[in-house]
């Protein structure tokens, strides 16, 4: 049987337990396009005990910080972050939903002022219920669930 062609990384970040098929979304949220020149390994639909199937992203030479990663929770709430130094897990953390999403997710209400094209207004959703993953639009009050957000992500 052919061996999986992704080695362990020496230094960098492994994002594990991403729901299957969401790896590219995770990269897009992190703003990683591949043009950075560093090694990026993407594994999709790998067998997982916890999730059945999962995606994994490995970033060689890049250390993500907590502040950078929380937005990943919007598309991959189950993801875990492993910071690797010298092939060992040096630090490990799970994701918490960001308190405020500014300019990241559009308000689903078409009559909301934050959706006026050409206006210099930045969308702003505030976390009101972390248990239920519920956000509220700062401008119109509309409630938005994390599960709705994938379609509302701004570029």
């Amino acid at each position, binding site marked *: 049987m052919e061996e999986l062609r992704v080695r362990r990384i020496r230094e960098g970040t492994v994002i594990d337990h991403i729901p299957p098929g969401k790896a590219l979304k995770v990269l897009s949220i992190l703003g990683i396009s591949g043009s950075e020149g560093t090694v990026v390994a993407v594994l999709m639909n790998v067998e997982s005990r916890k999730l059945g199937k999962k995606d994994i992203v490995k970033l060689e030479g890049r250390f993500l910080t907590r502040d950078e990663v929380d937005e990943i929770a919007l598309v991959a709430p189950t993801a875990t972050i492993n910071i690797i130094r010298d092939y060992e897990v040096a630090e490990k953390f799970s994701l918490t939903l960001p308190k405020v999403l500014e300019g990241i997710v559009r308000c689903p209400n078409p*009559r*909301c*002022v934050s959706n006026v094209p050409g206006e210099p207004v930045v969308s702003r959703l505030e976390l009101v219920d972390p248990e239920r993953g519920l956000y509220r639009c700062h*401008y119109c*009050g509309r409630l938005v669930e994390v599960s709705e957000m994938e379609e509302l992500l701004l570029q």
Partner: protein
Amino acid sequence: MSGRDLVDLEDLDEGEIREILRMASGHDPPRATRTLDGKILGLAFFEPSTRTKASFTSAMLRLGGSVVDMGEPSTTSLAKGEGFSDTLRILSGYCDALVIRHKLDGAARYASELLDIPVVNAGDGSRAHPTQALLDLYTIGKIKGRLEGLSVGVLGDLKYGRAANSFILAISRFSPKVLYLISPPLLRPRREVLEALRRRTDFRIVENPRDVIGELDILYVTRIQRERFPDPEEYERVKNSYVVDLELLKEAREDLRILHPLPRVGEIRNEVDGTPFAAYFEQARNGVPVRMAVLEWVLGHGGA
């Protein structure tokens, strides 16, 4: 620099709401004062409303200030392709406080963040209309002697109607005995309003006003618009169930009082006007004292 915004009643605590109501009673009936002498109020009604505009104008003139009416900026500046934020910034150079009305949800919040001068929301989108809600509360305090512990019914378009939404959120903060939300299923309040209510008060969703009319201290009536119904036949079928007439009021308690933000289009029959139930003309008269209080409050003349 003193001054604050009135964008949404949800931003104020109960103490601040009571303070404005107390200031309003000091202006009832409205008499000329000079507290805002030399101040200029700008009126930016992106969506027309002759009465609300007249009410703010009257209030400002009573306080010794002046008014600059920006016309309908949506038909002037926007026609030239100018953005909303540019228009607002330019208008704000002409006045000490700006009253804004707009069809979009959150327009007044956005304006308040852009501008350094106080912004008063005269209705934006389908939720916030804080000066209307204040005058509704003021009217209830005046005719009932209290805001708390009342059985209140709100009837009509509870989904899109901004007066109804503002009123529901406002009265829910004063511990109603029970709050009945009376509407066709299609026009029930939106989720964010129900979520807010759930944390505050005992409320019940009702389809037919006949089921609860006998319990009410206050019935707040709003219009149900034909355009809200995808199926015109559905509208025709339900509209008569939400008309307030003497027949419906047979079951009402003697001290029931009916409010309506006006204008009405047949949802309260004229035959009700001469009865003690009708409080909506009194309510309309309270617009000026309440807006006088609001203008003093935002421009930093509030409190004793």
